């Protein structure tokens, strides 16, 4: 078996006295799309924040490319290529689309490679090129999501974690964004996809995990999960 690019082992995390993660374990192999599904408040976003070291896990380990992330600063994690697209997009609303994309490349000094990546992002989402000078806050929800993804791509991630990219977005644009994720994956990007839209996420992924009240309870092949009775009743509305 190959060594996974990301390995999360028994991570516990809390906000003050409230324990939110109670033993999360999962792994992602290079080149995969892996879905992490679960209901509201199950700990999906907290899992991503704990992986990114934005919140510090109380115990457990997060290994990326064989190296433990525990104790690193957020910028050090990103510099290693472990990047996330935050929940609710969180684009910088009062800055232009171009400035948002530049901020994505904040840690990089390789100007020519950054220009290449900007061209690539513009090809993937042409609207970001057309609206480059516009304030990000004036974009539609779907366009902001494209900007959030584009901004994260500007840091040239090895593994991109996406937190609810379909949330609050018109269905047509959800399709567009999911196909962009597939396209990026074909280009070699590994993706960890957190979604409430379980059907869409599992349809895109090779494997999936289910998180319930802070614990990963089920994990396996995405197609198997789509057929699993428990998941069908709890998350797919069948």
């Amino acid at each position, binding site marked *: 078996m190959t060594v996974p690019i990301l390995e999360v082992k028994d991570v516990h995390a809390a906000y003050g006295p409230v324990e939110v993660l109670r033993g999360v374990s999962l792994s992602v192999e290079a080149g995969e799309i892996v879905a992490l599904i679960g209901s509201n408040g199950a700990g999906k976003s907290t899992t991503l924040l704990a992986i990114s070291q934005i919140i510090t896990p109380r115990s457990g380990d997060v290994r990326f490319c064989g190296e433990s992330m525990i104790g690193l600063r957020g910028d050090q994690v990103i510099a290693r290529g472990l990047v996330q697209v*935050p929940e609710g997009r969180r684009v910088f609303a009062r800055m232009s689309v171009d400035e948002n994309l530049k901020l994505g490349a904040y840690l990089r000094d390789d100007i020519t490679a950054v220009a290449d990546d900007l061209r690539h992002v513009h090809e993937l989402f042409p609207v970001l090129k057309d609206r480059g000078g516009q304030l990000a806050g004036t974009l539609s929800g779907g366009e902001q999501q494209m900007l959030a993804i584009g901004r994260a791509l500007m840091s040239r991630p090895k593994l991109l974690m996406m937190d609810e990219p379909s949330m609050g977005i018109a269905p047509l644009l959800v399709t567009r964004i999911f196909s962009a994720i597939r396209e990026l994956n074909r280009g070699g990007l590994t993706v960890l996809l957190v979604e409430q839209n379980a059907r869409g996420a599992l349809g895109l992924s090779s494997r999936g995990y289910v998180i319930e009240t802070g614990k990963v309870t089920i994990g396996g092949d995405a197609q198997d999960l789509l057929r699993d009775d428990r998941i069908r009743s709890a998350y797919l509305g069948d």
Partner: protein
Amino acid sequence: MQDYEVFLQQLITGLSNGMIIALVALGYTMVYGIIELINFAHGDVFMLGAFLALTLLGALGMEAWPSHWQLAGVAIMLLASAGFCGCLNWSLDRVAYRPLRRASKLSLLVSAIGCSFICTNLGLFWGGMPMEVFAGGVAAAAPKDFPQLIPQFNILGESAIRIVPADVAVLVVTVPLMIALVYLVKRTRLGRAMRAVAQDATAAALMGIPVDRVIGITFFIGGALGGFASVVYALYNNTIGFQMGYRAGMDAFTAAVLGGIGSLPGAVLGGLTIGCVRAMSDQYVETRWTNTIVFGILILILIFRPSGLLGSTRREKV
């Protein structure tokens, strides 16, 4: 002196003082923009900058220098005070504010008030220094004379209206600093990072922006502007004292709120407005009413336009 000449003279005084207030107000507004804290110690950091300048002036014996050397002395004091105030402000953030980043805004505010008291008392202590420029340090709390290093002649020659080199010096120092600040915030990588942290610190952290370092640099820059302002203030008004930070701090804070706290152009506009209102009130009402008028305006603004003159829900922070 004709009526209009009196008015113009007061306008010049008001604008000069206003530019100094604006420079201090920028420090308030930048820090507020990035962590939503009214840094009450900012005025006192400004005061300590003036004390450092006077100490240097005395220690190097600048008063005895030939006049063109004295200009170099002014430059030395400007740079030293700016560096000192920048470092001091950075240290306050590191020691007293940063540990409270996740605490409530009120804890942070109380911490800032505490820092203000500490700095005020440092100034009182410093005023007792046994140096000739501190009048031997006998009366620590007494106002100190700040020697006139800039020549006193009327640039307009025989005109009734006086514009002295000190007025020009105020502009020569403040305007380039303001232009440089706007360039820094609008055009540079650091400025982009500062605005990003101001808008959404968590999202900025997810972009790899070292949020605490950026906040620390913002404190440094705000403090340094206060340091520059303190030397200009001392040269322009020729008196400093350990309580000047409170007075100037209140004016600058009012200016920042008047212009719309968090807005850089707002701080400058607010500073100029406060400077002119003070000068006009001193002339046409009475000096003892000046504070009442200034704070009365503040209250009116807060009631009828709480976001200030240039502030709005869409304002550019930092």
